[in-house]
Structure formats: structure tokens, C-alpha cells
């Protein structure tokens, strides 16, 4: 989508019109001193040439002198106030005309009236009108004043009256016309200004729209290019009814249909395995398959789970689909987004890995079963008892076979945790019993290493809900670790107590708001400790601390990973405090029931 870009007109260029072609300049020139000066100069030339006879030299000379003086004055004051100048100068010119008329007694001179009268009538105010009429009257009265010299040229009495009257009316008409024209010109100019202002507004609005549409187009382009760049994940957007509106290259690749064949033509439901949808619909009691698909996303705001997509060629893909609701620009729910990652190979690999681990652990357990079973037969044979030396050797064999067996078990368990197939068999478990059992298990090894184990558990026990076997395994791991990492003469202290834990994991001795009751099991040793920099990696599979390696403490680095997984599965937390060379304390906090 793109708005047509409006053509921007060129910016207005300042008028550079030539003086002579500019009407304003012409008007100013015509109203200025030039026309009168030219006319009077021509009159003087005509008189000098003798084409018009001079009757009275004195009056004629005075007329020419007044005309010259007036014109000169007009030139001198042409930059001063127009209103005064354009009244005084033509009035003086009228006087000059009167004198020239008197001096020549020729009606030709009456033509000279035309210039001043026009100037007066075009004066901005009506003051020019009476001056023009009065001046005309004076000029026409000259023959009467001069008497016999004008005998032939005496105008009739009517002309004396009608002349000024006609001039007055004409001047008034010209004046009003001019005013009207000026007013109209003003209106036109104002309208032009308004029009250009409007035009400017339109242009600037068009510019804003243009910019906005460019930004929107750029954003849309960015989004489209990002979505199009995703070729390994399917991004599918639908309407509320499931009709597909967005279909990216990842979806094309995964499901084998091109965008034009899908968008607005197909529903998301056509790409889902129908039986799976039906089962999902049944499990939530939904009426429509689409609701089964989006139900969790509608309730939770988003949902990620595996679904089976059916590609165009009928093949099934296991896809981890993240479903989110989509809103339009007004925030109204408009449909759904489905972002899918093809997990078909990953899930197959996971299954193969699980099968492999199961197979290996079975294959390892079977010979170990034989070894341990026959060892038992030999060692417990009452008919032919072993020598002490033989018994000692076979005990070593048995101990190592047991160690191998534990390792196999740990590997299998770790694989189960990793694949999420690790389940608990919850029951009421007395942790005090678990701790005592762990002490018993470690007793021989501790005695051999010269390590003292101190047990401090509540006499009446402390019961949590959990898997007794797994909790025993976790506790065994912690105790056997503590014994392994404590040099001779050291001490391992096992303590169990009731405590409280706040929401951010802090363990507090007193009950306080927001804190939940926990069973706190701690295993403290006086061993070699764990360097601060390595404590974060401690629960990583196969991680072995530098102190463990330096001191050649046996192990593969699975015990704490398993202990942590068991603790987490019980909703508990496992933390440690350690100082290198001073010892380590592991603390396992397991939730107790409310008001325990």
C-alpha cells in the first residue's frame, strides 16, 4: 500500500519582472510628474514655435513659469506623501493652464486640463473631485475675466456651468471606479494570499502524509522482510475463524504450499492432524477444532506445545507451535499467530537417544547382575568357606561392581531427567530416617577415611511429601560427597530442622509473611572446599571442581546434577556455601505442607 506522492510545486520565485512591463510601475509613473512635465514642455515648444499665437506675453510667460515650477516641485517631492502631493501639484497645474489660456486666448489650451483632472480624480480621497470641478470652473471663467481679448472665444454661459459639473461628475465616476477597482484588487490580492496559504497548508499536509505513508511502508517492509527471512520456522497468521492471512517461506517449506495457494483460501485447521485436534477438543470439552487449538493461548495469553502438521504431500511433521492472539490497530482481537519449529527430527533423535540409553543401561546391568549374583554365591557358600584373603579380594571386586552399577544407574537417571521422563512416586517420607540411612551407608567409608559423621535430626522425625527412593539417593549423594572431599580427622555434620523460606529463596528461622515452611537438610563438611569461581558450574553434568581433580577424588560429576534434579522435582531448592580449604555446606530446602 502506498499513497501517490503529490508533486511539489516549485517554491515561489521572487518577482523579477522588468520595470517597464510591471503595471504598478506604469501606474506610479502616470500619476507622477512625468506626463504633466512632458505635456507642458510640449506646450512651451508649441508656443515657442508660434503654432499657437500668444496674445498676452506676460500671462503666457507666467503660465509657463507656473507649469515649470510646479513640474519641478512635483519632481522634487515625488517621494513624499502621495495624498498631499497628488492634490497640490495638479491644482498648481490647473493654475498654469488658466494662465496659459488667458495668455493665448486659445481653446487649444483647454486640452491641457485633461492631465491634472485625471490625476485629481484618481486621488485616493474624494478631495480631488471639488478641486477638479473648481479648477475647471476657474479656467472656463478666464475669458469673462479677460473681457474683450477673448471676444471670439467666449464660451456660452451653459458651458461655464456644465463644464465644471461634467468634470465633477466625471471625476467622481472615475474616482469611484478606481476605488472599486482598488477594492476589488485588494480583495483579489487577499484571496490570492489566502489561496496560497491554503495551498501551502495542503502542500505541507501532503508532505506529512507522504512522510507518514513512507514510514508505514518502511515498517511494513521491515516486518515483511523479517517474516520472509524466516525460512526454518513457519509463521502463520489467521483471522479469528482460522482463515490464513500470513504464510511465510518457512511455512511454504514446512508444509509444501506456496503463499498464493493458501492466503485467504485455506484454514489453519487443514494443516492439523484431524484426530489430534479431535482428541484435544474432547479433552477440553470444546465444540470446535479451532477452539481446541487456541484454547490455551486464549486463556493463558500464549501457548507452546507440540502439534502434528500435515504437509501438502500428506507427510506428518511434529511441530512445536507457539500460539498467540493477534490484535488489530485498535487493539481488537483479530486472529491468531502460529509460529512453528519443526521438531520431527529432534523428537526422533530424542527417542533414539532414550532408546540407546535404555539399551546400554540394560546391556550393562545384565553382566553386572551376573557378576554380583555369582560373587554372592561364592562368598556365601557355607560348604566351602573362603580364606580371609580370598574374601578381601572378592570384596574389592564386589565394591567395584557396585560402583559400576551406580554409575550406570546415574547415567540412566540423568538421561531420564534430561528427556523429562523422570517421575516421582510421592508418599510421606520421614527425612530423619533418610538422613540416618545415608549416615549408615556412608559409615564404613567415613570410618576408613578417618572422618567423623555427626547426625543432628529431630527425634520425632520430619515428614515431607516425596519419593523416598529419590530423596534417599539425593541425601546419599550429598553425604558421600562430603565424606569423599573431607580429609582424615575432619567432620561431616548432617542436620535436619524445620524452617521457613521466603519467596526469593532466603531461609529464615522465624515465620514471617510470605514465607513458606520448609524442611532444611544441611550437610556440612570440613573439607577442601570449592573455589568461588566454580560454584556456579557445580550442578552441571560431568563438571568436576579443580579441588576434586587436584586431590584425585574419584567421581564423574553426576551426583550433584542428580541431587539438584531430584530437589527441583520436589519443588525444593539446593544451595551451597563454601570456602576453599575450610569446607562446604550444602543446604536442601524441601517444602513442608501448609501449617506443618
Amino acid at each position: 500500500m502506498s499513497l501517490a506522492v503529490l508533486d511539489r510545486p516549485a517554491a515561489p520565485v521572487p518577482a523579477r519582472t522588468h520595470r517597464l512591463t510591471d503595471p504598478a510601475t506604469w501606474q506610479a509613473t502616470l500619476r507622477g510628474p512625468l506626463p504633466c512635465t512632458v505635456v507642458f514642455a510640449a506646450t512651451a515648444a508649441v508656443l515657442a514655435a508660434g503654432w499657437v499665437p500668444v496674445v498676452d506675453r506676460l500671462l503666457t510667460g507666467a503660465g509657463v513659469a507656473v507649469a515649470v515650477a510646479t513640474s519641478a516641485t512635483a519632481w522634487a517631492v515625488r517621494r513624499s506623501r502621495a495624498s498631499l502631493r497628488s492634490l497640490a501639484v495638479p491644482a498648481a497645474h490647473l493654475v498654469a493652464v488658466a494662465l496659459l489660456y488667458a495668455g493665448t486666448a486659445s481653446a487649444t489650451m483647454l486640452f491641457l486640463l485633461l492631465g491634472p483632472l485625471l490625476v485629481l480624480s484618481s486621488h485616493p480621497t474624494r478631495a480631488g473631485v471639488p478641486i477638479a470641478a473648481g479648477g475647471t470652473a476657474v479656467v472656463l471663467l478666464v475669458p469673462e475675466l479677460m473681457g474683450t481679448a477673448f471676444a471670439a472665444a467666449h464660451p456660452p454661459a451653459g458651458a461655464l456651468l456644465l463644464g465644471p459639473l461634467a468634470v465633477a461628475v466625471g471625476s467622481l465616476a472615475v474616482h469611484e471606479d478606481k476605488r472599486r477597482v482598488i477594492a476589488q484588487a485588494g480583495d483579489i490580492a487577499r484571496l490570492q494570499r489566502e489561496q496560497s496559504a491554503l495551498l501551502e497548508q495542503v502542500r505541507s499536509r501532503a508532505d506529512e502524509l507522504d512522510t507518514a505513508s513512507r514510514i508505514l511502508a518502511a515498517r511494513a517492509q521491515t516486518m515483511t522482510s523479517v517474516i520472509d527471512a524466516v525460512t526454518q520456522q513457519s509463521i502463520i497468521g489467521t483471522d479469528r475463524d482460522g482463515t490464513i492471512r500470513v504464510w511465510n517461506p518457512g511455512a511454504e517449506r514446512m508444509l509444501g504450499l506456496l503463499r498464493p495457494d493458501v492466503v485467504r483460501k485455506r484454514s489453519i485447521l487443514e494443516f492439523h492432524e484431524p484426530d489430534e485436534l479431535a482428541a484435544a477438543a474432547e479433552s477440553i470439552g470444546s465444540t470446535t477444532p479451532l477452539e481446541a487449538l487456541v484454547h490455551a493461548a486464549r486463556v493463558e495469553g500464549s501457548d507452546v506445545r507440540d502439534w502434528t502438521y500435515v504437509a501438502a504431500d500428506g507427510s506428518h511433521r511434529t511441530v512445536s507451535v507457539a500460539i498467540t492472539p493477534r490484535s488489530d490497530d485498535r487493539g481488537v482481537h483479530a486472529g491468531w499467530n502460529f509460529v512453528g519449529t519443526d521438531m520431527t527430527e529432534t523428537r526422533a533423535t530424542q527417542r533414539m537417544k532414550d532408546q540407546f540409553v535404555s539399551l546400554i543401561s540394560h546391556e550393562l546391568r545384565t553382566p553386572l547382575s551376573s557378576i554380583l549374583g555369582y560373587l554372592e554365591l561364592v562368598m556365601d557358600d557355607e560348604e566351602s568357606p573362603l580364606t580371609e584373603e580370598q574374601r578381601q579380594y572378592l570384596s574389592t571386586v564386589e565394591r567395584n561392581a557396585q560402583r559400576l552399577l551406580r554409575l550406570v544407574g546415574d547415567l540412566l537417571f540423568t538421561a531420564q531427567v534430561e528427556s523429562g521422563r523422570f517421575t516421582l512416586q510421592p508418599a510421606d517420607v520421614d527425612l530423619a530416617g533418610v538422613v540416618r540411612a545415608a549416615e549408615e551407608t556412608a559409615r564404613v567409608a567415613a570410618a576408613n577415611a578417618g572422618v567423623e559423621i555427626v547426625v543432628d535430626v529431630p527425634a520425632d522425625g520430619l515428614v515431607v511429601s516425596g519419593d523416598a527412593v529419590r530423596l534417599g539417593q539425593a541425601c546419599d549423594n550429598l553425604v558421600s560427597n562430603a565424606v569423599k572431599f573431607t580429609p582424615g580427622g575432619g567432620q561431616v555434620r548432617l542436620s535436619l530442622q524445620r524452617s521457613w523460606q521466603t519467596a526469593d529463596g532466603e531461609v529464615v528461622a522465624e515465620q514471617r509473611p510470605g514465607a513458606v515452611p520448609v524442611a532444611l537438610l544441611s550437610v556440612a563438611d570440613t573439607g577442601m572446599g570449592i573455589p568461588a569461581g566454580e560454584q556456579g558450574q557445580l550442578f552441571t553434568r560431568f563438571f568436576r571442581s579443580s579441588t576434586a581433580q587436584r586431590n584425585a577424588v574419584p567421581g564423574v560429576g553426576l551426583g550433584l546434577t542428580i541431587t539438584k534434579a531430584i530437589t527441583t522435582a520436589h519443588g525444593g531448592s539446593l544451595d551451597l556455601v563454601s570456602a576453599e580449604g575450610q569446607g562446604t555446606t550444602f543446604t536442601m530446602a524441601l517444602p513442608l505442607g501448609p501449617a506443618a
Partner: protein
Amino acid sequence: MDSALHATDPSPGRSRVLVADDEDDIRDLVCVAVRKAGCDVVRSVNDGAEALVAARTDLPDLAVLDVSMPGATGLEICTALREDPVTTGIRILLLSAGASPDEVARGLSAGADAYLAKPFTVAGLVSQVRALTVGVPA
């Protein structure tokens, strides 16, 4: 394979036990444990299908079955024996390397009387066999 370790002539008054495991060494070990428990091994086989036939023909008091065997799994044999009124009275002890709780549950729901995870101790197996053959009419 030392036949002396396997099926012996049943002595009167002693419980008769069928042993099935595809691992020869383990099967021998089981036979030893059965005798230690004071029972007779009526037959020992290394195949699930054979085990089912033997159970139907010999009608032992107890069948000690490995879960994963060729021919038929211990669970399948279990189900088959329980469905047949003739064999439904045979006590069944399952042995398996898979010791996860849901495997135990599956074994018991298939009709087994007891379930023992490998590796088992001989002493443990002996006491299980004894427990399962107590009260069996001679």
C-alpha cells in the same frame, strides 16, 4: 550349558518352578536360587514362546520370567497365563533390568505376583521364591 543346573526330576512335596531368561548366566543363577529356596526347577528356557508352552504343559507352581525375552516378553506371558483358566493359578515372579516405578506397575497390572529388579541379590531372590511357594499344595 551344564544340564545339571537345569531341570531336575521333581521330588515329591517340593514346589515346581519354571525359569525363563534369555541370558544363560542369569538363568543359571536363578535356578541356583530356586533350589536354595527348596524348590525344583521343572524346566528352564531362554525364549518367551517356549516359556509359554512349558507353562501350559508343565503347569508349574511358580514361573520366574525375565521381562525382555525373544519370542514373547514376560508381560505378554503373564497376560496370556492369567487369561487361561488352566494356567491362571500359576504364581508369577517377573525379573527385569528396568526398575522404574511405572515398569513395576505395568508388570503387576499384567498379573505378576511379584517383581524383582535386576541386579537382584541371590538372597533376595531366594526369599521371594520361598514367599511365593509357601502354601502351594504339594
